[in-house]
């Protein structure tokens, strides 16, 4: 692997419509291996939709998504997982009646990780799930369910990991802890895209952010720079004033 940051994901001119509503309207950005990229923007700006399209939940209505130069737009989710794309969900969606261990076993068995994934034991240990390993997922608290959701994604050894509001609802200690974990994941060469409302968290972990509004990007660069750009301020403050 080269030491320079090679671009893994390319999104160009992505369009997604729901009826007449353009949830994504020509979104373009890229993400490199080993990089943590933040996706920020007001509610309804298209952050989650873009994750849903990239992870194959929705087929795009226009534009292009490439992974390592290969077009992946419209490919079914499970195939994307096999290609090395995975994600977590804003509201975690574990398999409620299965135990934690079984939840992980499914992803380990079907993820077709190209590099040998860590064992279930290691993953549970790392994400503090060992003591609930044999309990059904329905008995887990919200933070534990989020970790299980993350572990499910990690068990497939993704090259590109999309985190949809993973930090929401975690307490400050947990936040510090999970930041460190995410950074460690990036260190292994994983490209990570983080959708988050907590700006502190974004600032703490991201190398770069994309600011979105109305389905497209309006800024790309460091968060510290972004908050000084008038257009970005207007989107955030204007949006809130209007509301």
């Amino acid at each position, binding site marked *: 692997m080269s030491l320079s940051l090679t671009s893994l994901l390319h999104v160009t001119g992505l369009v997604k419509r729901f009826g007449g509503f353009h949830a994504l309207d020509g979104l373009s950005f890229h993400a490199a291996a080993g990089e943590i990229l933040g996706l920020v923007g007001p509610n309804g700006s298209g952050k989650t939709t873009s994750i849903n399209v990239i*992870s*194959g*939940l929705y087929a795009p209505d226009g534009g292009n998504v490439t992974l390592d130069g290969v077009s992946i737009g419209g490919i*079914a*989710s*499970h195939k994307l*997982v*096999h290609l090395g794309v*995975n*994600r977590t*969900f804003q509201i975690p*969606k*574990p*398999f*409620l*009646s*299965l135990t934690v261990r*079984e*939840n992980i*076993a*499914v*992803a*380990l*068995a*079907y*993820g*077709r990780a190209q590099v040998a994934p860590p064992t279930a034991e290691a993953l549970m240990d790392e994400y503090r799930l060992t003591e609930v390993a044999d309990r059904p997922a329905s008995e887990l608290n919200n933070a534990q369910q989020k970790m299980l*959701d993350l572990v*499910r*994604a990690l*068990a*497939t050894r993704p090259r590109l990991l999309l985190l949809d509001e993973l930090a929401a609802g975690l307490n400050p200690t947990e936040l510090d802890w999970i930041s460190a974990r995410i950074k460690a994941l990036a260190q292994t060469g994983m490209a990570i895209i983080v959708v988050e409302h907590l700006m502190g968290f974004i600032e703490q972990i991201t190398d770069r952010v994309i600011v979105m509004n109305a389905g497209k990007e309006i800024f790309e660069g460091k968060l510290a720079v972004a908050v000084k750009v008038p257009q970005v301020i207007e989107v955030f403050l204007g949006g809130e004033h209007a509301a």
Partner: protein
Amino acid sequence: MRHLLLIVLPLLVIFALLPGVYQNHLLLFNFVIFLVLAQGVNIIYGFTGYLPFGYVGFFGAGAYGFAITVMHYHASAPMAVLVAGAVGVALGLFLSPLLRLSGAYFAIANMAAALAVLHFVANPALEDITRGPYGVSLTGTFNPTLAYAAALIVLALTMGIVVFLKNSSFGLALQAVREDPVSASMAGVNVVRMRVIAWLASALVAGLAGGVYAWYVSVFFPDNVFSSDFSIFAIVFALFGGVATITGPIIGVVALYGVYNLIGFTTPQYFQLIYGLLIMVLVLFLPAGLVSLATRRGWRVP
């Protein structure tokens, strides 16, 4: 392996020995048939969450697959049973678009499909092929001993499938699909293919059961083998025992069908009333099935 040895083998041995000591072989045969059907429901409902309200469609199609093979191609009965299974699978494949539906929609569409197959088979326009509403008589292949043995083989196969599902990551993945298809696809599971495979496996065992039933009963009308009672009984038995387990449907069939016949033999005058009340009480007080009595205490039920 442990499950095969401790659950399936004893079950098969018991049902293989029972005809020697109990003479109502047809009752035993019906037990075996309902064990197969309840486990078939378990495969599709327990592991994927689709309630096959028209499950009898596969059963009836299998029975007619058997009949047509025997009548028109003069095949041997075991051969015809295999055809019956194939017919079940073919019908399952044909109906696989129904899997796009969920919840009650699937259940209702499946019920409609079974009725459609019944009315298709029973239509006088198809008299040359199915004998339409006039019924079939297959006395040439009638052989209760062999048919019973064949039913046991079908049961063994069915139990084998369920044991595999219970002990494999394939079964785990199916349950994941049942719990949350989106999340399952993000675990790398091909949701559509998994569902279709479970659906076809379930159709296969029902088709085989239908073939064996046709072999044993040998004289029947469309209304006999497409009776919705088969679907409803199989579902009620499976749910009563507890689905997504190996033992649940077995307990369900043995207990509930046992009670059913006991009422039928002893108090026929209030048969329907007692049975209806029994079902209601069970759903209200044991909604997760008999095995929930054990799981509530934290015991793992195979």
